[in-house]
């Protein structure tokens, strides 16, 4: 089977509008989270990673008319444009487009929205992005809760493997809206303080908004230095509960096993785990149990939610891109918000930035509906096992 690679990439977030500036901020320990009091979003104070609409519009007006696009469309187009331009790939019949989002333009359902309700349909979001760039193929929109961003990598790889496409651009994005904040708050899952994944004092999640994009390609030339090969990937359901994680970490355990199996490597060859780490008591405990069952307690692990909050359908792709840059720089980034272990297994949370030789990493995510996705990536330059 042809190899597939993660290539050019972009992160559009409160920490910067390109991957390099964002990763630079992460390496300095700068978080995009802030405390907000905005009753139009939530009746009580909350902590989130937000991007100013004005800044996005100013940026967008350089390439188009911002008034014709929603905030999310502007973010996703700005993010994807950097990747399309950098890769210099002609958008012909062999180029696919995958869009990953959980809620898309959900803010259009608000009574005072300037856009018609039809814009809330995710296929409309797909068409708008397709038409902006002139993609030849109908976009594939993936909406699979919080694993969507990582699963989009699987989807791109699988369509390339079937010969449908040679290259697939993925763009992912979600907003912090009244809709999402009220929902997570009704679950009593929000923390009003910056979140603390895996920490003893963790109390819940922060939400964040971001757009992230990447090129997935079977081409063997024209790579940025952080490009990586996709070795294996899998999704597994917990078959347990629609809103709570499995107590045994069953789906996560199985997804990592299956991804390792396809990658044809052992868990000992994983240098780093970029985990989900939402900072809810149940999620983080579930992950600790799954990684312990996999014999991966010693593998350095972080959650990036302390930098961006939980960015829903974009989080998995965002965190994979940060992982690619971490590998390229040979630095493990500290798991922001963590100080004292608060899960029942002795997993190895990264407390401060560590320079070290890195080759291969595992990205995982878990979400509502009981889904769990794992992807294993390896530096393109290192020899095959």
């Amino acid at each position, binding site marked *: 089977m042809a190899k597939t690679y993660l290539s050019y990439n972009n992160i559009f977030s409160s920490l910067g509008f390109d991957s390099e500036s964002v990763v630079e901020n992460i390496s300095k320990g700068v978080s995009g989270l802030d405390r907000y009091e905005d009753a139009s979003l939530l009746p009580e104070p909350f902590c989130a990673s937000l991007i100013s609409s004005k800044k996005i519009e100013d940026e967008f007006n350089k390439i188009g008319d911002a008034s014709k696009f929603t905030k999310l469309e502007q973010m996703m187009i700005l993010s994807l444009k950097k990747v399309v331009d950098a890769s210099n790939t002609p958008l012909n019949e062999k180029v696919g487009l995958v869009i990953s989002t959980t809620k898309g333009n959900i803010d259009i359902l608000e009574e005072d929205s300037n856009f018609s309700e039809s814009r809330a349909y995710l296929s409309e979001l797909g068409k708008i992005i397709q038409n902006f760039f002139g993609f030849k193929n109908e976009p594939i929109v993936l*909406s699979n809760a919080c694993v969507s961003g990582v699963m989009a990598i699987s989807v791109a790889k699988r*369509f390339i493997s079937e010969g449908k496409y040679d290259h697939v651009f993925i763009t992912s994005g979600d907003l912090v809206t009244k809709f999402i904040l009220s*929902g997570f708050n009704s*679950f009593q899952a929000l923390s009003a303080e910056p979140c603390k994944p895996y920490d003893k004092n963790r109390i819940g999640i922060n939400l964040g908004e971001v757009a992230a994009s990447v090129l997935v390609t079977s081409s063997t030339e024209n790579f940025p230095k952080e490009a990586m090969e996709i070795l294996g990937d899998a*999704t597994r*359901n917990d078959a347990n509960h629609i809103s709570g994680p499995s107590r045994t970490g069953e789906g996560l355990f199985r997804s990592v096993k299956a991804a390792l199996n396809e990658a044809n490597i052992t868990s000992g060859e994983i240098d780093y785990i970029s985990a989900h780490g939402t900072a809810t008591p149940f999620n983080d405990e579930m992950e600790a149990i799954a990684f312990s069952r996999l014999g991966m307690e010693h593998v350095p692990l972080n959650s990036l939610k302390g930098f961006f909050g939980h960015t829903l359908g974009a989080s998995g792709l965002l965190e994979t891109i940060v992982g690619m840059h971490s590998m390229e720089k040979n630095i493990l980034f500290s798991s922001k918000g963590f100080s004292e272990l608060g899960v029942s297994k002795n997993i190895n949370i990264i407390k401060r930035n560590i320079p070290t030789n890195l080759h291969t990493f595992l990205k995982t995510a878990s979400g509502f509906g009981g*889904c769990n996705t794992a992807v294993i990536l390896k530096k393109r330059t290192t020899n095959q096992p």
Partner: protein
Amino acid sequence: MSEIFHIKSYSHIKNQTVSVNGQTIYREESEDFSIFIKNAYKFLKTGYPKFFKMDNLSKLAFLAADVLLKDENLNEEENNIALIFSNKASSLDTDRKHQAAIENEAEYFPSPAVFVYTLPNICLGEISIKHRLYSENSFFIFDRFNAEHLQLYANNLLRRGKAEKVLCGWVDFDKNSYEAFLYLVENEGEIVHNTEEITRLYKTL
């Protein structure tokens, strides 16, 4: 492993009718979805009380899957049947209910029992729990039924050994209009798994 796969069985739920392999097994007088789906559930002896907590999309998807999977002699412990579902309206039917509960300050009352269904893939979780499917599941959104993408994706999972069988299809619920079409793909079967046959079956009823 064989590169040619087959469609073993298929189901439709639309126009107040439940059918399996093109044969109607239940028809309802009422045009109201909630009455229709409740009566279909009873008639089919589904016997799964969690059904009544589900939102409309999950009820539709669950029943369309159940009429096929209950004939599969599934293992009680676990099964490797992937789910690849798609639709146009995502979870908008329930999204609108959640939005209505938060729109006005005076009547602000978001409910976790509603909010959890504001994701289209929740119906995949419901089906996985009932039938012990610790397997691949993906939910795609398309403007209309897209046989080609479903066929390629199912083929990939089967060819690469990522699933033993794949349950694919379309489950859409939007403003009391509803449509489900699911089909089970595996090695054995009478109908060849290609886009022409999928499209033919989709349009059968």
